[in-house]
């Protein structure tokens, strides 16, 4: 293994900020994942691995989680890192700023630090997926000595983030690049290997591809070039790619179908949509063969997936029959694409074409990111594309989209389609608090079978975002979170 070297990585779009405790979107985590850490990391089988915590125990009743922290860890400004920082982060800071974590923290009774290197999470009731909540994007540990007692959002130090991670923030030239340098005081001997990392902001997808070709950048994280370009780039000499590093998130895409009103409130219409779409065509043409056609709400790479469900293969005749049966009168339906680039746009066009071929009068509503957020969270749509991370467990990333308690205007991250099924709601809740994985698997299989027949949303595809990089970069992706988990282990071969 080799010391030194530099990596240039594309970051797209430019992150709004680097303080991971305040912003957790993809680009922020990509960069800040090098600066901040959490207690654990996860390998590609989603098993927990040490990070800031050297070891940990879970009591048999599943209610007490005890973490033993690394000794001698220092913040980037030289202050010592202690259990008090963890308690402050989880119990004070993130409770205020981090909505997703806040949901998991409702199960938590108390967080305490018996000594400087031990943290104890005491739960009110068992919560199976709780062990998956200690990833840097979910629970970034922030420095107490900087944030305690301040207004977090406007703290001046947000511009120069201080973490415990392998790289330190050096400089951010807005619109151009973010520069991180090696943390010489990192607590793991010899790590990191790289001297510096540049995150490069290049707004145009074609320009990003050119940048990679001309050697300006070394790594294209998933999604930074359009899928059509992937084969061309990976065929180049000395270029490697991997689909690994997405196991934890396991992004799954679907279309919300408004269950409240219009033709989409009729289950036959929703089934017709499923049959009308040629999802294999989309996978092969739009996604260039990457990913997998989804069969239901749970991604096949995560723990509780079941394929024992109704299969909606491409079948326009069947779709037409269903439409005839329900007496579809040609009422127009609006498709809201996800404004994330050409791939998604083409996808919406393909869907519109598929739908119009079975006689559904569909048109595309166009908006930018803000408009998409507004329309979906205000339920102003008929069909709306989206994709969501699963965070390694149906209880963290799946159920929130289907249970009635999660119907609330104003957020695009809940049960936006307005699906209500009290029976299933109970089953989701029960499955979350079962203690053994085996029990849970059975429960989730049953849920999947039932929900797929109801088609509350039109499941589309399990997305795969290949990471493209030069083959001389080694150990780039070592966890289920991929390069978002930091470049602690990466090195460059001479």
């Amino acid at each position: 293994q080799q010391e030194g070297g530099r990596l240039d990585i594309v970051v797209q779009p430019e992150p709004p900020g680097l303080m991971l405790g305040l912003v957790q979107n993809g680009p922020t985590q990509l960069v800040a994942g090098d600066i901040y850490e959490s207690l654990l990391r996860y390998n590609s089988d989603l098993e927990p691995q040490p990070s800031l915590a050297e070891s940990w125990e879970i009591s048999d009743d599943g209610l007490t989680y005890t973490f033993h922290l690394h000794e001698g860890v220092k913040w980037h400004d030289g202050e010592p890192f202690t259990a008090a920082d963890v308690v402050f982060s989880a119990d004070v800071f993130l409770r205020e700023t981090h909505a997703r974590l806040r949901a998991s923290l409702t199960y938590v009774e108390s967080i305490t630090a018996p000594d400087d290197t031990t943290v104890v999470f005491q739960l009110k009731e068992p919560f199976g997926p709780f062990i998956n909540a200690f990833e840097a994007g979910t629970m970034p540990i922030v420095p107490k000595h900087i944030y305690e007692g301040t207004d977090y959002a406007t703290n001046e130090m947000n511009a120069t983030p201080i973490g415990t991670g392998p790289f330190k923030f050096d400089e951010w030239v807005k619109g151009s690049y973010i520069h991180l340098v090696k943390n010489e005081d990192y607590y793991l001997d010899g790590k990191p290997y790289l001297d510096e990392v540049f995150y490069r902001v290049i707004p145009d997808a074609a320009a990003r591809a050119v940048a990679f070709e001309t050697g300006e950048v070394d790594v294209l994280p998933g999604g930074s070039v359009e899928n059509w370009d992937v084969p061309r780039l990976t065929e180049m000499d000395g270029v490697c790619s991997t689909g690994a590093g997405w196991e934890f998130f396991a992004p799954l895409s679907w279309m919300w179908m408004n269950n409240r009103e219009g033709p989409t409130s009729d289950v036959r219409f929703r089934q017709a949509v499923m049959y009308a779409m040629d999802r294999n065509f989309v996978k092969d043409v739009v996604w260039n063969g990457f990913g997998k056609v989804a069969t239901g709400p749970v991604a096949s790479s995560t723990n509780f997936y079941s394929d024992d469900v109704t299969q909606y293969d491409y079948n326009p005749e069947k779709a037409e029959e269903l439409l005839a049966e329900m007496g579809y009168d040609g009422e127009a339906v609006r498709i809201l694409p996800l404004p994330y680039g050409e791939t998604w746009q083409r996808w919406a066009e393909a869907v519109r074409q598929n739908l119009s071929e079975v006689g559904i009068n569909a048109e595309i509503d166009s908006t930018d990111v803000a408009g998409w957020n507004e329309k979906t969270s205000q339920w102003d749509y008929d069909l709306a594309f989206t994709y969501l991370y699963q965070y390694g467990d149906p209880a963290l990333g799946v159920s929130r989209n289907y249970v009635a308690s999660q119907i609330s205007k104003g957020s695009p991250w809940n049960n936006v389609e307005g699906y209500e099924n009290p029976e299933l709601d109970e089953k989701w809740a029960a499955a979350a608090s079962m203690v053994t994985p085996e029990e849970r698997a059975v429960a989730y299989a049953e849920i999947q079978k039932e929900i797929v027949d109801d088609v509350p949303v039109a499941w589309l595809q399990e997305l795969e975002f290949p990471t493209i990089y030069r083959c001389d970069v080694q150990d780039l992706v070592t966890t289920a979170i991929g390069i978002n988990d930091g470049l602690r282990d990466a090195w460059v071969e001479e």
Partner: protein
Amino acid sequence: MWKRFSSNIGAMIGVVLLLAVILIAIFAPLLFSHTPWQMVQRPFLTPFTMDGLPLGTDTLGRDVASQLAYGARVSLLVGLVSTLVALLIGVPLGALAGFYGNWVDEGAMRFTEFFQTIPNFALAIVLVAIFEPTLISITIAIAIVSWPPVARLVRAEVMSVRKREFVDAARLAGLSRPRILMTQVLPNTVSPIIVMASLMVATAILLESSLSFLGLGDPNAMSWGYMIGAARTVIRSAWWLSFFPGIAIVLTVLALNLIGEGLNDALNPHLSRKGKA
């Protein structure tokens, strides 16, 4: 006048080109059996390799030739309508300002200046983003950013015509002021307006395509800008996807410019027009 115009080779080339584009746009449904959105073949089919698909297919296997023909409709429509709307705003405003002078002029010009001060492409982007991209909002946005030069031109023309003696003669004849404006002054300003309009159509087409390129086009209307925008990510592997619409824009804009210049010469035999506002 037509004689002078038709003897201008450039202008005639322009007319022929534009006519071709217009005919293709009008007869697009007759020329192609499928809509531009229909996926008809395998994607990325190279041009001139398959009968019936002379210009190949795009990323989804849709017919590029058909897209080009339908795209002409949108480009021309947006160009013409937005120019018309811009004229409808700019001509009356400029005419009133130039004719009545004083505070009317001051007010109208402040108002115009105000729109000119906001960089117009940026304003168009904001307007389209705000009203959401549909053909109508795009057309209106383009019109809104293109009327100020019209107002200025018309104002300048009206101010110079207003000082001509035949206007005084009309006043002596007892004509009312609005009537003088309509029957005596405005008819004498039409030639520069026509010339400007022909150039504005060209600019509007470019503007629409730029908006589309940024993803601010109407997703339900095939346009050339959309085609280029959609093709830019595959520009390396499928050059024809951005090349043909690019050429189409260049030729149409060129045609309109040639016509504009031809008109300019034909309507201005003495070439004595000054200061394009």
